[in-house]
C-alpha cells in the first residue's frame, strides 16, 4: 500500500518558513524545555561577571572545602575558589569551544564535501578514503596523540573536535551534493552558462546547509562532552582556567567527603547536554519536510 502523502493542496504561504517553524517549535513541550535550558546556560555564561562577584581563579586557603552557603552559593573547592563563579565561567569555555569548533568544522566540512561531491571521481574516492581513515580513530586516542604533540590546551580540544566532526559533515555534504548536482535546476544553471563556483555557491550550498546546521546543533552536546572529558583527563583546559571537566576532576578525589564539588561540575554538563539534545531533536522534527502541514 502506498503511504498517505500530503493531501492538502499547496497554497501560497503567507508567513516565512522560519517564523512557521519557530511557532511549531514553541508548540513542542520538549523543544521549549530544551530552549529554556540552552538559554539558561547561555545567560549564565554571558553574565558570569554580574552573577557572581568572585574571581573564578582567586585562591583563598582559608575557605577550602566549604559547603554551599550564602557567601559561596555552591561552596568552594580544594583551593578555596568559589565554585559558582567557576561553573559560570566554565560555561563560557564550554560554549566557546562548542560554538567555535562546530563553526570551523562546518566550514571545513562544507568546502570538502562540495569538492568531493562536485569534483572528479578520483578526487571523490581519495577524499572518502581520507574521511573514513580519520573517522576510524577513536576520539580519545586522537586526543592523546594530539596532546602529546602540541601539549594540553584549549586549542588542542578544538582541533580534536574539528578532526572528529569534519569527516561526518563532509560526507553528508558530499552525498547531498551528488544528489543535487543531477537535479534539473543545476542543469538549467549550467545551460545558462553559470560557472562552477556560482553553481556551488548559489545553487548547491543553500540546499545542503539547512539540514547540516540542524545536525550540528545536535552535535554540540557531544562537543561539550569532549571538552569536559579532555579537561577531566588533564588533556584540555590548563588550570587555573575553569572548565566543567576540571571542576569534576577536582571534586572526584573527595567525592565522599565533599560531594558538592563533583555535583557543581557534573550537573551543568547534564543540563547543557539535555538542553541542546532536546532543542536539536525538536528542530530536526520541526524542519523535517515530511512533517510539514501538521
Amino acid at each position, binding site marked *: 500500500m502506498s503511504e498517505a502523502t500530503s493531501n492538502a493542496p499547496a497554497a501560497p*504561504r503567507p508567513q516565512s518558513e522560519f517564523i512557521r517553524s519557530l511557532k511549531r517549535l514553541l508548540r513542542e513541550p520538549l523543544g521549549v524545555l530544551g530552549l529554556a535550558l540552552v538559554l539558561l546556560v547561555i545567560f549564565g555564561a554571558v553574565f558570569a561577571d554580574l552573577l557572581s562577584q568572585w574571581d573564578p581563579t582567586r585562591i583563598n586557603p582559608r575557605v577550602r572545602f566549604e559547603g554551599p552557603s550564602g557567601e559561596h552559593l555552591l561552596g568552594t573547592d580544594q583551593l578555596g575558589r568559589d565554585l559558582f563563579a567557576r561553573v559560570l565561567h566554565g560555561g563560557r569555555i564550554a560554549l566557546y569551544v562548542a560554538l567555535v569548533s562546530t563553526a570551523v568544522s562546518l566550514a571545513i566540512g562544507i568546502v570538502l564535501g562540495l569538492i568531493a561531491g562536485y569534483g572528479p571521481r578520483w578526487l571523490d574516492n581519495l577524499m572518502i578514503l581520507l574521511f573514513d581513515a580519520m573517522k576510524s580513530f577513536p576520539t580519545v586516542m586522537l586526543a592523546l596523540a594530539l596532546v602529546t604533540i602540541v601539549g594540553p590546551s584549549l586549542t588542542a580540544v578544538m582541533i580534536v573536535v574539528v578532526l572528529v566532526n569534519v569527516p561526518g559533515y563532509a560526507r553528508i555534504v558530499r552525498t547531498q551534493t551528488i544528489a543535487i548536482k543531477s537535479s*534539473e*535546476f*543545476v*542543469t*538549467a544553471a549550467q*545551460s*545558462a*552558462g553559470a560557472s562552477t563556483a556560482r553553481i556551488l555557491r548559489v545553487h548547491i550550498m*543553500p540546499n545542503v546547509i539547512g539540514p547540516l546546521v540542524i545536525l550540528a546543533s545536535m552535535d554540540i552536546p557531544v562537543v561539550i562532552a569532549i571538552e569536559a572529558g579532555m579537561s577531566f583527563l588533564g588533556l584540555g583546559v590548563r588550570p587555573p582556567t575553569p572548565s566543567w571537566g576540571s571542576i569534576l576532576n577536582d571534586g572526584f578525589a573527595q567525592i565522599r567527603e565533599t560531594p558538592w564539588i563533583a555535583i557543581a561540575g557534573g550537573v551543568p554538563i547534564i543540563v547543557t547536554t539535555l538542553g541542546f539534545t532536546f532543542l536539536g531533536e525538536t528542530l530536526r522534527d520541526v524542519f523535517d519536510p515530511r512533517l510539514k502541514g501538521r
Partner: protein
Amino acid sequence: MSEAPILSVDDVQVAFPVGGMLNRGAILGVAGVSFSVQRGETFALVGESGSGKTTLARAINGLQEISEGAITFDGGRIDGLGKRQMKPIRKRMSMMFQDPVGSLSPRMTVGDLVTEPFRIHGTEGRNLRDEAARLLTLVGLPADFAARYPHQLSGGQARRVGVARAIALDPALIIADEPTAGLDVSVQGEVLNLLNDLRERLGLAMVIITHNLHVVHHVADRTAVMYLGRFVEMGETETMFANPRHPYTAALLSANPEPDPDKTHDRITLPAEVPSLLARPPGCEFHTRCPWAQDRCSRDAPPGGDVACHYPLAPGARAPVATQVTEPVT
C-alpha cells in the same frame, strides 16, 4: 530561404559508453540526425521515451558531447567547444527544462531566478529589479511575484518563470524540453500561447521537444518524428498531420484518445515494445512493431530522406501503398 539557418545539425551521433573493462562498447542515443531551423521558425522533435529527443536537445545545448557530426549555430560550429568558448553562445541560445518547478533553484526567489542570466553574463548597468519586473510582466505574471519562492508557485506560474529566464538575454533560439509536461490541460494552452506570442514579438526560433503530437500541431512549423535515435519522418507539421507517411507517425497520431465517447477508433496498435538500444533490430529498426512490415524491412535499411520507410503510406490511406492495390493512389 536565402537566409542562413540559425541552427543546423548535420549527421549528429551521440554515443554512450556501456559495459565494464572487458566488454566495453557504446550505444547510440542519437544515431545520425540532420535538420536545420530557420530564424523565427518553430521546429518540433517528437518521440516517445527512449527515442533520444532529450539527448539530442542536450547535445545542441552543449550539455552532452557528440561523437560524430557537426552542430552549427548562427554561422559557427559549436560542437566540441570548451566551457569558456560556449559561454557567449549560451547568451544567444537558452534552454527550458521539463520539470516546471524542479528546474527552478528552490532557495532562490523568482526575482533572482529570472535575473540570474544577467548575473552570469554581466549586468551591463541594468537595474536587476527593473529587469525582473519587465520580464515577469512579459510572461504575464504580476511583478510582485519576484519575492516568491518556487514552491509557492503553481505549475503554470513556475513554467512562466522558466520562460522569463529563457528570454532574459534576448536569445535567438530557445530549446524547450516538454514545455507542457506536468501542467494541467487548462494551463498547457496558456504556456503554448505565451511561447507563440513571444516568438512572434521577439522573432525567436524555437525547438520544441515533446511526446505529445497534439501540442506540436498548434505551435510547430515543421516536425521531426524520432524513433530509436533516428528521424523516421520529417516535414511540414500540417502536411504530416493530414498525411502521415511513416507507419510510426500514423500510429502515434492514432494513439491519442479523444474526448468523444462515440468516436470509433480506427487505431493502429503497435505490437511489442520499443526495442533496446543495445540490440537494434536489423534492417528497418521499426519492423519489429510495424503492422505492415515485409520481408525486405527486416533486411535492408530504409531509404534516407524525409520518410525513412520502404513502403510509406499513401496520402489518406491507412495502409502502405504496396499492400493496397485496390486503393487508388492520388
